[in-house]
């Protein structure tokens, strides 16, 4: 049973001036939200840890796909227009990472929907817990899992000979971009969870995520695609994230690539999490 801290420490102190009290109150509120978020994040991580069987396919499947593509596309990397790489493995690293974290990305929404279905969410609402941590706690769990997956996937790729031209810093950006993408997808899942209260509805977003990865530059450069598919791939935000990350891996460090790799998922994250907060506020004020 999760025990959430609820008592603001400042409230128990002696009398102060009005502005000092307001500032202290805001700071205490923020600290309290942080502590509650951490407590709910911990609960979420423990829940994932107890269901490792759900996490493993998200690691094994992208690695299997990368291994298969590396051995079947040896002639493909010689096509004119294909980026200069030693092996397809170097090319596919960002795709594998994005695919891996996407497997668990909807989990933040699914778990929230489960909490709504089994009544735990109502108990949290009845407690003096702040609203934002209810959402951020679940997202925090997804972030921790995504970070662990990211580090593991990169380590395995390095073990099999992948070289990251941008160095350790590029690897950090790669993981950060993947984590931001998880927040973006997780936020969307939470919107659906709040609106429908159904795990099934949240799970239905997985094919959408899966498709958006395949219909991007994840597994093939867009300049070698043609027709409507190329246009879709070029307009796909997943391509806007993968392309700069891939340049960091293949070509080396570039601040503009770092900016693009992080800004795109950050903007989408802010939008989806804001939508989740609005949906939650509406749900709570209507009930």
């Amino acid at each position, binding site marked *: 049973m999760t025990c959430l801290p609820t008592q603001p420490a400042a409230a128990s102190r002696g009398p102060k001036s009005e502005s000092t009290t307001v500032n202290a109150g805001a700071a205490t509120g923020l600290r309290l939200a942080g502590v509650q978020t951490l407590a709910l994040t911990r609960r979420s991580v423990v829940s994932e840890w107890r269901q490792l069987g759900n996490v493993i*396919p998200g690691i*094994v*499947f992208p690695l*299997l*796909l990368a*291994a*298969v593509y590396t*051995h*079947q*596309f*040896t*002639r*493909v990397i*010689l*096509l004119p227009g294909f980026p200069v790489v030693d092996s397809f493995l170097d090319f596919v690293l960002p795709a594998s990472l994005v695919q891996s974290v996407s497997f668990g990305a909807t989990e933040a929404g699914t778990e929230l929907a489960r909490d709504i279905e089994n009544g735990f969410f109502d108990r949290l609402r009845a407690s003096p817990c702040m609203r934002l941590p209810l959402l951020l706690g679940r997202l925090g769990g997804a972030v921790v899992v995504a970070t662990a997956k990211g580090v593991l996937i990169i380590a395995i790729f390095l073990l099999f000979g992948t070289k990251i031209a941008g160095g350790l810093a590029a690897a950090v950006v790669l993981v950060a971009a993947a984590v931001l993408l998880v927040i973006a997808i997780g936020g969307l899942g939470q919107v659906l969870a709040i609106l429908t209260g159904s795990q099934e509805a949240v799970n239905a977003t997985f*094919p959408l995520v*899966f*498709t958006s990865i*395949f*219909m991007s530059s994840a*597994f*093939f450069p867009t300049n*070698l*695609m*043609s*027709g*409507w*598919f*190329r246009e*879709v*791939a070029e307009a796909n935000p997943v391509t806007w994230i993968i392309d700069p990350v891939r340049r960091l891996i293949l070509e080396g460090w570039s601040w503009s690539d770092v900016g693009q790799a992080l800004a795109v998922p950050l903007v989408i994250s802010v939008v989806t999490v804001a939508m989740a907060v609005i949906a939650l506020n509406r749900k709570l004020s209507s009930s």
Partner: protein
Amino acid sequence: MVASAICGRGMRRIMARPTLIMPVLLMPLIFVLSFTGAFGSLTRVEGYGTDNVFNWMAVYAAMQGAVFAGVGGASTTAEDIENGFFDRLLLTPGSRVPILVGTMAYSALRSTIPTTGVLLVSALGGLGLPGGLLALVTVYVATAGMAAAFCLLGLAVVYRFRTMRSMILIQVCGFSLMFLSTGQVPIHFMNGWLHTVARVNPVTNVLRFARQGFLGDLTWSMTWPGLVALGAMVAVAGVLAVHQLRRLAA
């Protein structure tokens, strides 16, 4: 009689709830569009075997759909076990095997939905039929066989674990077998361990059999290994399923 009733029940279920068709149909369509769109340039690599990527990928996507159809068929049994209906079936007198045969027939029949969908979409993309109408027959035979094999494999797992969640094992198994075959490129494009695995993977022979009519004329030398592979997969999965069913019923 029992087998046809179970098969009919499954089909009526699909008619009553069209949303059940969507996952079976949608994923193979996404596959055919994604693979042909993303990997269209493969035809520019010497030795690919066709200049129209739909002729290569359509069969692969249809086979993926057949695997989904097979697993979906086994999932209905998982649902029946979870809600208690299967216990009532076991209480009926007579052999248990028709229960299994009916579910397998339902899966095979269900596989015609994604196969038809994939072929229609691929036809819009310019799918050619150098092997004539027999090419279509081979695809339907291969996909029905794959659906039957994966349904039986799914049933073996469901009878053993008695949960819907256990279906993920068969999904992963199906996905892996498909990816470790000549689904996307010819075998001579592969190297290392993948070449070895794809060569011994029975799905490679099934794909050769089903795809031959889209790449050229049908030949017996391409046909019999595929039929043997299908027969062997159905036989092995069938033995496993019957064994687990007897264990469950005992």
